[in-house]
C-alpha cells in the first residue's frame, strides 16, 4: 500500500495495490474509488485532501510487512 500526497494540489492517492483500475466510482465530492477488472478495490483518489483526511499524523499499527518512508 502506498500513500502519495501532492501538496501543490492537495491531492492524495491511496494505492491499495499496484493493479490498474478499470472502473471508477465517486462516492462523495472529490473522493473516487478505483476498482480492477475483477471488481476489487485497488485505490482511493482524494482531492482537496486536507479537508477530508487527517494528514498531520499517520499511525501504522502491527502491519505484517516491511514499512518504508520516503521524504518528498
Amino acid at each position, binding site marked *: 500500500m502506498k500513500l502519495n500526497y501532492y501538496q501543490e494540489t492537495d491531492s492524495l492517492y491511496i494505492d491499495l495495490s499496484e493493479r490498474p483500475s478499470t472502473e471508477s466510482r465517486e462516492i462523495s465530492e472529490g473522493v473516487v474509488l*478505483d476498482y480492477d477488472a475483477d471488481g476489487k478495490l485497488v485505490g482511493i483518489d482524494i*482531492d*482537496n485532501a486536507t479537508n477530508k483526511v487527517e494528514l498531520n499524523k499517520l499511525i501504522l499499527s502491527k502491519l505484517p510487512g516491511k514499512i518504508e518512508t520516503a521524504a518528498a
Partner: protein
Amino acid sequence: MDHYKFTEYFEKEVLRKRPYLKKDWCIYVIENAIRSEPQEHNRHRFWAAIPELEGRYLRIVTLEDKVTIHNAFPDRGFQP
C-alpha cells in the same frame, strides 16, 4: 489545444492508475462538454461521452483556471 496543462497528480497518479485514459480525450471533453460546473471550491468539472469508452461519460476535473487538467474518470453516476 496547446494551452492545456496537466497537474503532476494527473501525470503520476491518474494516468498510472487508469492507464486506458488518453490526454486527447480530456481535452475533447473540455471542448465538447455537454455540461460543466464548479466542483468543491477550487475545481471545475466537465462531462462528455467518449465513443472509445463505449459512449460512457468521462468526467474531467480541472483546477480553477479550466485549462489545467487534474483528474479524469468514467462517471457512471452522471445523468445527462
